[in-house]
């Protein structure tokens, strides 16, 4: 797996800046480490062999204190800088992803998935930037630098290092590859077990109703235990990679110590460089070893980034190419139109239908027959996958989507109103619209003085529907689309909405989707959409 996603650097300038910043700091940290080792050796040898007093060693000790401060400052800067970069990168990606998703795929993909990816999911970037990336750079910079320094002072030790250091990444990759598939299997097993437990807990009411609640205890114990045994079997192999890393690192240090010791006895090396090399040995293996410890920070962070970048690369459902403005509004014609989604297959069609200007048309059909999908095609939230839709003979795909939508007023199934005075919410249909007239037509005139709270609070579901209807009417658009305008309304509210629909001018073309027989009496024509295959689309199990 690649440790860094190049798309991340392309899409987030803050990530590029942090990488450069961290590379400089990693180099400084390495230099400080080497200097510290050299000074430490000098002080120890000075006191031990040359009998130098504390006072005469003061300059070196002072320099060591300075280096300790410098290393602390670098550690602080790396951690803070990493977190700061994560915050900034998250914000940059979030802004782009949200703008893209809303524009490119209205209503798709699922709201929850995008919401979690852009908020909670993005938090996995923090340890990735604060821990993994600095460690990665340190692992790239420190070992070669230390190796070069050691080579200048003790070639034999440098050779030992040069042989043992590559073992860490090589074995890491070799064993890691083997372990990775097993680790993956382990996570899937964990997922399975958690899902099983969640399933049992979620169905507890049903289990208790059938006296099976307590019987599940043994099942849970058995599943947990089977999972443990399965996991341990994979871990026995998985942890081998860690064993190899540890052995290469500590054994390398031990071999260097013994080798130096033997040559010291022979007088082939002086104590001072020998000691410095010994102090540096763990610093050489350390960064690589610790990098392996940041495995989860890296996979989680990359997965989060991948999810965000994947959303950013979604193909727009409707081409963004700017076509001309619609010249005129006339007959809307669907010719053998088929619609579908990538993940659900075909959900509508083929359908052929012509709606004359001024006609009021009701679409009926069982749930899942594609009524809402047909409306979303007319809104150009998606384009047909086969066939075409024309207006006055012009293919809808040749028009600028935004300009086209200005000709459409829409009442969704579950309308949402922007917080603020009701009059303002209605005016959003079209600035400068006659709010009162629209409100009266929708039976919402008495609501004009009211205020909409967050998420529509302060208004009942029926009132929200009527205000949204008024908003649609205020739009003064030639095509009006109403999706289940009376669903879930009590009798009085539904009657008010029916009256409003009945009163719609014949200047406007109306297409409404409904189950409600009362609405069918007030339209010019009723079209039934046949369900695609079976009334119970259970064959999807296959």
């Amino acid at each position, binding site marked *: 797996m690649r440790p860094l996603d190049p798309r991340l650097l392309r899409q987030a300038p803050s990530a590029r800046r942090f990488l450069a910043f961290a590379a400089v700091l990693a180099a400084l940290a390495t230099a400080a480490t080497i200097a510290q080792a050299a000074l430490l050796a000098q002080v120890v040898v000075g006191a031990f062999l040359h009998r130098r007093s504390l006072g005469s060693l003061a300059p070196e000790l002072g320099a060591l204190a300075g280096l300790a401060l410098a290393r602390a400052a670098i550690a602080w800067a790396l951690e803070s800088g990493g977190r700061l970069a994560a915050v900034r990168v998250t914000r940059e990606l979030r802004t782009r992803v949200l703008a893209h998703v809303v*524009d490119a795929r*209205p209503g798709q993909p699922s709201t929850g998935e995008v919401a979690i990816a852009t*908020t909670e999911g993005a938090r996995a970037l923090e340890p990735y930037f604060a821990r993994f990336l600095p460690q990665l750079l340190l692992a790239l910079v420190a070992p070669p630098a230390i190796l070069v320094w050691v080579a200048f002072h003790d070639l034999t030790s440098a050779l030992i290092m040069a042989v043992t250091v590559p073992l860490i990444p090589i074995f890491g990759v070799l064993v890691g590859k083997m372990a990775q598939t097993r680790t993956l299997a382990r996570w899937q097993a964990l997922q399975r077990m958690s899902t099983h437990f969640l399933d049992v807990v979620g169905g507890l009411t049903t289990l208790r109703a059938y006296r099976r609640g307590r019987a599940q205890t043994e099942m849970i114990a058995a599943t947990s235990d089977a999972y443990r045994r399965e996991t341990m079997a994979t871990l026995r192999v998985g942890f081998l990679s860690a064993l190899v890393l540890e052995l290469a690192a500590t054994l390398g240090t031990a071999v260097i110590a013994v080798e130096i010791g033997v040559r010291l006895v022979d007088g082939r090396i002086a104590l001072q460089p020998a000691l410095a090399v010994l102090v540096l040995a763990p610093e050489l293996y350390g960064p690589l070893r610790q990098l392996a410890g940041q495995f989860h920070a890296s996979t989680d962070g990359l997965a989060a980034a991948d999810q965000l970048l994947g959303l950013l690369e979604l193909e727009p459902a409707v081409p963004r190419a700017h076509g001309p403005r619609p010249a005129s509004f006339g007959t809307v014609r669907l010719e053998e139109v088929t619609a579908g989604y990538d993940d659900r297959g075909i959900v509508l069609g083929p359908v052929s239908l012509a709606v004359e200007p001024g006609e009021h048309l009701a679409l009926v059909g069982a749930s899942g027959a594609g009524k809402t999908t047909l409306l979303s095609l007319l809104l150009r939230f998606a384009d047909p996958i086969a066939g075409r839709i024309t207006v006055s003979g012009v293919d809808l795909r040749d028009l600028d989507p935004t300009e086209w939508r200005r000709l459409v007023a829409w009442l969704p199934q579950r309308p949402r109103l922007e917080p603020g005075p009701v009059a303002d919410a209605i005016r959003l249909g079209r600035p400068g619209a006659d709010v009162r007239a629209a409100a009266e037509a929708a039976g919402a005139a008495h609501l004009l003085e009211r205020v909409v709270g967050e998420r529509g609070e302060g208004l009942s579901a029926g009132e929200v529907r009527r205000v949204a209807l008024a908003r649609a009417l205020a739009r003064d658009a030639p095509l009006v689309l109403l999706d289940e305008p009376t669903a879930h309304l009590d009798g009085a509210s539904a009657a008010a909405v029916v009256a409003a629909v009945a009163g719609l001018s014949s200047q406007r073309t109306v297409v409404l989707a409904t189950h409600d027989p009362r609405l069918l009496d007030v339209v010019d024509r009723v079209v039934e959409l046949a369900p695609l295959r079976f009334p119970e689309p259970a064959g999807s*199990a296959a």
Partner: protein
Amino acid sequence: MSDRPLGRLVALARPLWPRFALAAVLGSLAVGSAVALMGTSGFLISKASLRPAILSLSIVIVAVRLFGVSRGVFRYAERLSSHDAALRLVGRLRVRFYKRLEPLVPAGLPSVRSGDLLSRFVADIDALQNLYLRGIAPPLVAVVVGAGAVIAAGLLMPQAALWLALGLLLAGVALPAATSSLARAAGRRQAGARAALATEVVELLAAGPELVAYERADAQLGRVAAADATLTRIAGRDAVAAGVGEGLATLLTGVTALAVLVAGVHATDAGALRGVLLAALVLLAIAAFEAVRPLPEAAQQLAATSGAAARLFELTDREPAVRDPERALAPPVGELLRLENVRLRYAPDAPWVLDGVDLELRFGSLVALLGSSGAGKTTLASLLVRFRDPDEGRVSLDGRDFRAYAQDDVRRVVALAGQDAHLFQTSIRNNVRLAKPDASDDEIEAALRRSRAWDWIASLPDGLDTDVGEQGALVSGGQRQRIALARAFLSGARFIVLDEPTAHLDPETAAAIVDDLLAAAAGIGVLLITHSPLRLERFDQVLSLEHGRIRSHRRTAGL
């Protein structure tokens, strides 16, 4: 919040303590090996520089090689034993908490959003896996290795050991305490901003099509950006503070090493320390800090685990809504199920949900109960299978109070298929067989034929083995209800209570379900609770629940 949740968890883990101890010993040996490696290496080369006979060094050389190997080996053994112990712990706790949760469902749980509650319950138990691995093991190892390093240093030079002890205490106790309280404060500061951002994001996405249609997407994106800016400002400040912990840890290592070095040089100068030991002393001090490095993270892990444990205990410490009697009556036959002047409310000062309800359900009769949403229909259903008891009045079966029977005996006679009838993520066969574990395939088929699901199932390529998917996602709403109905038929119950089986269905499917139910209901007592009046003419009795009381609409001569 429960008192000392971590203490209670550790107490629950008592049978696993020996395993924890073993893992801690192995972990200490692993880290201790690294410290000893640096100490002995320092001594080895200092001694070697005095050019003694090579034989006099052989013991030290063996020690250095030994420590070079032992660290990796001990670490491997430690990882295996600690993961095994952690998995055993979670398995044990999962069973323990499940046992406590089971009698609480559904009436003993707080609030209405029990779906969220239960998924958090599952996630909280999974989170306990980290309790030992990342929460308890690192401090244990740090104490053992830290003490060992200080003692070793003390043998060489007591004054240097004091400096080392001070540095380790600061880095291992004070620093984790400070950073974890810093992180908690940051979490609290950011929580509001994060929630505000999430709200705006969800609004943007949920209302996305509408915003695009009315050209308001930019306005909402602006609100998201404003919320994001607030969060970025707060999180940015916290990021700068969070780095301080890392910086201080590095500083403490460096300064302690320096203090030990200065003390050592001074002692060597004064003749109190043999110069040949100086390098060993300093290298040992530097290496000892490896033991305390993971402690700041362990402190945060413990805080997080403590929160999860507190939620779990808070939930499972509740009293069940119903209990079995000390000595239960013999199982009832199931001729007559009655509510007698039943009153029930959710809190002592809340209004009565059921306010003097009388209801009779005879074996073999069909009764429909209508009521708008929120009228207390589901509460009434839960009384009939004794998920809860009434506050006043009584529920009786064959003339004896429900409370005199064992709960399971009541539920053997009365089956409930609620609107949320759960389909488990397994085959259709297993989902139906749940009601009667020893049922044969023929019995299962008969029950499914009775609920008119068999033709559909027979047409599936895998038939009864078809998996229903997560929460029954692969099955349509109508078939889900038919499977739930088959379950009730298979159970052999004398009474079936159906709570809104037609909710969320389109009118045609809903009517078909009721038709199928009526066709199959011969020889059992059925109470259909619904808000939509469908096929009422075919019921023996039609009742409605209004303002906590039952109103009878029609009583046919058939009774």
